[in-house]
C-alpha cells in the first residue's frame, strides 16, 4: 500500500470516527427497530424527542460551560429550585403563569451570575463553587417547600401535550429553538469563537485580547438559565415537583455532552449534531431497553456499556487525530 492510500485510509477512518456518536445513534436505533418494529412508529419517536427535550436543554448549557474547560454541578438543584419557586409563586402568591416562569428564569440568571462572580472575582474553582451551590440550592428548595411536593396548575401540564404546526410537541419545539440559537451563537458570532478559544487555551485567548472574564460570566449565566428552562419544561410534563426532583440530572447532562463529543478539558464540542445526538442516544437506549423488556437488573449495565463504548470510540478518534497531526508535521518538516 503506498503512502497516498494509507493517508486516504486514515482520513476515511478519521471521518468515520468523527461521526461516531451519530453512527452509534443510528445503529442503536435501527437495531432496536429491527427487533421490535413498533420502535419505528411516530408515537415512540415523539416520546423519545419529548423525553429528551428537557435534559437536552440542560445539556446544551452544560456544553457551553464544558467548552470553556469549566463544569457546573448545580444544574439539577437549580432545576429543582426554579421549578419549585415558580410553582410556589403561582400557588401561594397567585402569580400569573408567565410571570412565575419569568421569575424562575431570573432565578437561573442570578445563580449563574453568582457562579461567575465566585469564579471570576473570588478565583474559586468551578467544581467547588457549583458543588457548593448543588448542596445549597437543594437545601434552600427543601426549606421553601418543607419537602412537600409542589403541584403545578393543570394549565401548565396541558402545555406539554400542545402541538405546534400540528405535530411538534411544545417541549420539542422549545428544544429545537434553543438548539438553533445556541448553534448560531457558537458558529456564527465572535462570542461563540471566543468561547472555543478560551476553552482551547485561555492564556493564548487572553493574549489575543479576548475578555476571558466576560466569556466565563456569559457561559455560566447561560448554563443556569438553560437549567431553569429545562426544569420548567420537565414540569410541564410531570405536573408536580417532589423533593427528589432534579437529582442526578447534572450527570445526565454531562453524559449527554461528553457522548456528543464535548471534551471535558474544553475547546472541543458542538451543540448540533454533538450534544443533540448524545442526548437522543441516551434516551433511545433507555426506551429501547423498556421496549425489549430487558431484565431490569441488566438495563443499567447495558446503558453504561453503550456509553462507555461511545466514549472509548471518541477517545480513539482523538488519538488518531493526534497521530495524523504528528504525521503531517513530520511530512512538512521533510
Amino acid at each position, binding site marked *: 500500500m503506498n503512502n497516498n492510500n494509507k493517508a486516504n485510509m486514515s482520513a476515511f477512518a478519521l471521518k468515520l470516527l468523527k461521526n461516531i456518536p451519530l453512527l452509534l445513534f443510528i445503529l442503536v436505533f435501527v437495531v432496536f427497530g429491527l427487533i421490535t418494529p413498533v420502535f419505528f412508529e411516530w408515537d*415512540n419517536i415523539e416520546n423519545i424527542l419529548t*423525553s429528551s427535550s428537557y435534559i437536552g436543554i440542560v445539556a446544551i448549557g452544560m456544553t457551553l460551560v464544558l467548552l470553556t474547560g469549566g463544569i457546573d454541578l448545580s444544574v439539577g438543584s437549580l432545576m429543582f429550585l426554579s421549578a*419549585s419557586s415558580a410553582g410556589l*409563586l403561582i400557588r401561594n*402568591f397567585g402569580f400569573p403563569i408567565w410571570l412565575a416562569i419569568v421569575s424562575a428564569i431570573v432565578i437561573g440568571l*442570578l445563580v449563574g451570575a453568582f457562579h461567575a462572580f465566585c469564579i471570576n472575582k473570588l478565583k474559586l474553582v468551578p467544581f467547588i463553587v457549583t458543588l457548593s451551590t448543588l448542596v445549597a440550592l437543594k437545601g434552600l428548595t427543601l*426549606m421553601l417547600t418543607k419537602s412537600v411536593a409542589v403541584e403545578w396548575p393543570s394549565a401548565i401540564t396541558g402545555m406539554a401535550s400542545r402541538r405546534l404546526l400540528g405535530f411538534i410537541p411544545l417541549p420539542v419545539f422549545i428544544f429545537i429553538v434553543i438548539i438553533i440559537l445556541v448553534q448560531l451563537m457558537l458558529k456564527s458570532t465572535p462570542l461563540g469563537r471566543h468561547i472555543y478559544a478560551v476553552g482551547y487555551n485561555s492564556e493564548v485567548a487572553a493574549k489575543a485580547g479576548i475578555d476571558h472574564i466576560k466569556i466565563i460570566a456569559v457561559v455560566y449565566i447561560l448554563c443556569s438559565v438553560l437549567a431553569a428552562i429545562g426544569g420548567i419544561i420537565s414540569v410541564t*410534563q410531570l405536573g408536580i415537583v417532589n423533593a*427528589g426532583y432534579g437529582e442526578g440530572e447534572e450527570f445526565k447532562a454531562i453524559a449527554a455532552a461528553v457522548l456528543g463529543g464535548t471534551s471535558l478539558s474544553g475547546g472541543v464540542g458542538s451543540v448540533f449534531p454533538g450534544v443533540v445526538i448524545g442526548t437522543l442516544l441516551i434516551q433511545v437506549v433507555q426506551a429501547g431497553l423498556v*421496549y425489549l423488556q430487558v431484565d431490569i437488573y441488566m438495563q443499567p449495565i447495558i446503558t453504561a456499556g453503550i456509553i462507555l463504548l461511545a466514549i472509548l470510540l471518541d477517545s480513539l478518534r482523538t488519538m488518531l487525530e493526534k497521530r495524523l497531526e504528528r504525521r503531517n508535521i513530520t511530512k512538512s518538516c521533510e
Partner: protein
Amino acid sequence: MKRALSIVMLVVMFAVLVTACAPKPEPAAAPAPEATPAAAEQPAAEKKLKIAFAYQDLETEFWVAGHKAIVETLKAKGIEVIEFNANEDANKQLEQVNDAIAQKVDGIIIIPQDGESAVAIGEACNSAGIPFGVFNRPPSNKDAKALVAVADNVTISAKAMEHMALEARKVFEKTGKKVKPLVMVGDLGDPNAVGRYQGFKNVYEKNKDIFTEYIEVPTKWDSNTALANLKSAMAANKDVGLLFCGSDFLYPVIKSVLEPLGKWQKIGDPNHIIMGAVDGDMTAGKLMDEGYVDATAVQDLYYEAELILTGMLEAIEKGEKTPEKWMDDPGFALTQANMGEMKMRMWGNKLRQEKGEL
C-alpha cells in the same frame, strides 16, 4: 468595582426573590439548653433523655409524616431530639451517627439510605453500647442488633394486588381476553422497592390464567425516569389493563402519561386501567375517593412510629445496650370494596382530614 457591586446586588435580589417564595415561618422551637455542670449534677431521675434521629431525607409525604410522628411524639414526652438529615448520603449518615455517639445520646433511631448502610450504622451503635432503632427501611441482614419497625412490603403489596387481580378476573370473564399487567418498580437498591415488586409477582404467579406476561418499568424512584419509561412502555404495549406502582408518589407521572392516551379513566369506564400502588398518601386517598384507583397497599405509618418509639424507650428504661427486636407492621390494603370501614385508617386520609379536605 462597579461590576462586582452589581453582581452583589443581583445576589441580594435573588435572595429576596427566593425568600418571597417561602411559606410563613413557623415560630422556631426553643433551642435545647446546653448541658451545664449544674445540669450534670441533677439526679439521674430528672435527667432529660436525649435521642438522635437520623433520617436519609424527607423526600416524600410518607417520610415527612413519619418524621413528624416520631419527633413530635418524643418531644411531647419531654425527650430531647437531635436531628440529622443525611441528604441521601449513606456515608454522611454514618458520620452523623458517630457524631451522635460522641454526644453520648441515650438512643439512636435512623431511617437509613439503604439496607447495607443500616447494618454498618447498627454495628457502630452496638460497639458504643447505644440502643439502635431502624424505622421503615430494614437492614439487609441481622449482623447488627437492632429494634426494627418495618412494614411487610411483600404482604401489603400482595394484599392490594389481590384485589386488583379480582378486578382483572372480572374483566377476563366478561371479555374472554387476558389482562396485560404493568409494574412500575422502584430503586432496586431499596429493599422496600424489591419487596413490593415481589408482592406483585407473587399474586401474578397465582393468577397467570388471567394475565399475559407482565411489563416491567424501572423508575429508580425518579419522576423523570418513570415518565420516560412509562411513556415507552405504554407506546409499546397499548393494551395494558392493570398497572401496579411501587409508590403513590408517582401517581402524577402516571396521570400525565395515561391522560393523553385517554386511559386515565374512572372505574367503570371501558378504558379504565385497574390501578394500585403502595404507601397510602394523600394523593392516593384522593384518587381512591374520585374512583381512579382500585387499591392502595397501606403502610401503617403511625403504628410503625409507635412500635419503634415504644421499643426504644423500653430498652432505655431497662438499661439494655443492644436490644434486638423485629417488629412487623402488617399493614393493610385499602380497596374500593372496604373503603367504608378502612378509609380513615390510611395515614394519607388522616392527613387530609387534618387539612380539612375530608
